């Protein structure tokens, strides 16, 4: 039953090779989806390009379906998967900061690494700024400790929030994703005209 202990099964070097292969596949998919280009990424925010939301949300719902179907069939022990505990207020603040950084810089942390792989200069500067920000945050987080730990809700996910069965929540999220895809396409066509 998954998740498997990769190091115990394949040894240290074997597990590192698997992580490398997964990282390679992830980078390949991101680059081939055009996620290494900051103009394409920021175009999402103006509804000119829809691939970011489509690729990301498709990945989310596919992963969600795989996780919960595997759990339902006894192939995966969901309780062994690490789910970040919810710290509401710093989570909201972090989301806003990340969103602003995404629009201004044109990348999120992962895509900036993809852009560096293709030697994009803007990606390199973004990555430098990212590292500087991480260091600055690490050195100053002690001063905002109370805020950093505020809104602690523990393991709090959508089924707990909505008081619904997990399967029903997954169905709703899939519906939401599909409605969003259709809505964004309609919005794109409305603003920029029908695509040929």
């Amino acid at each position, binding site marked *: 039953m998954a998740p498997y202990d990769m190091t115990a099964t394949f040894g240290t070097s074997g597990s590192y090779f698997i992580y490398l292969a997964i990282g390679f596949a992830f980078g390949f998919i991101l680059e081939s989806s055009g996620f290494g280009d900051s103009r394409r990424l920021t175009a999402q925010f103006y509804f000119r390009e829809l691939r970011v939301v489509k690729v990301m949300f498709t990945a989310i719902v*596919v992963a969600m379906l795989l996780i919960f*179907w595997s759990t339902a069939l006894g192939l995966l022990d*969901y309780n062994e998967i690490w789910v970040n505990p919810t710290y509401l207020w710093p989570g909201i603040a972090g989301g806003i900061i990340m969103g602003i950084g995404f629009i201004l810089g044109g990348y999120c942390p992962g895509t900036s690494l993809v852009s560096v792989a293709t030697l994009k200069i803007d990606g390199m500067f973004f990555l430098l700024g990212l590292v500087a920000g991480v260091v600055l945050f690490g050195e100053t987080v002690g001063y905002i400790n109370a805020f950093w730990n505020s809104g602690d809700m523990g393991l709090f996910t959508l089924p707990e929030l909505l008081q619904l069965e997990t*399967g029903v929540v997954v*169905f709703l999220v899939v*519906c939401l994703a599909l409605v969003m895809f259709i809505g964004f396409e309609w919005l794109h066509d409305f603003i920029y005209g029908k695509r040929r």
Partner: protein
Amino acid sequence: MKRLPDLRVPGAAALLLAAAGLAWHGQPAVEQQWEFLAPRYESRLIERQVYIDPAELLYLMNDDYIDLLIFDVRDESDWNQFHLADAERVPLDQLPSQRDRLRALPENAVLVVVSNDEMLATEAWKRLMVLAKPNVYILEGGLNLWLNIYGVPAEEVAGHGRTSLAQPNGRLRHRFKMALGARHAAARPDEHLTPQRDYTPKVQLFKKVARAGGCG
């Protein structure tokens, strides 16, 4: 370059179908989750690797290097009659609320589940393995055996001596004149004044703890 076929509608239909199927199928209940986990963990129960002798629990209660938690999963009536010092009453239906706490336990933490005999505690052990897989053990023979060993002799309190442990039925077999809870002498017996018992230590820590501190 040849244009790829437009798979948006079939793709969306496949996602919807898979999601609807999942909503209909639902997620497994705790009992079914244990069935999935049983091939990996049930041997610990069958080989009695997780049933610890009362003397080992007494040793743990007096070990300052161990972060010991005792979950008493019995009903409130039995809990009021007698319970171990520092035990917490956590009935089976409240175990899920302990998940976050159990996952955050330090590596020197040991959780011991107690009930009147071993039946309810074993059920709790299974649920705890499903929820959080802490370093959890079961008190062998339950509180009935504990009281047989550390309880007050019959001649001191009428009807409160050793009791038969045959055919466990989940009930507290010792009778109390009043509900003493943890005020009973057996709730935390003095390990130096109690009879020494030979037992096979079974508790293993996730990480060895340093048993000496300071310089040198």
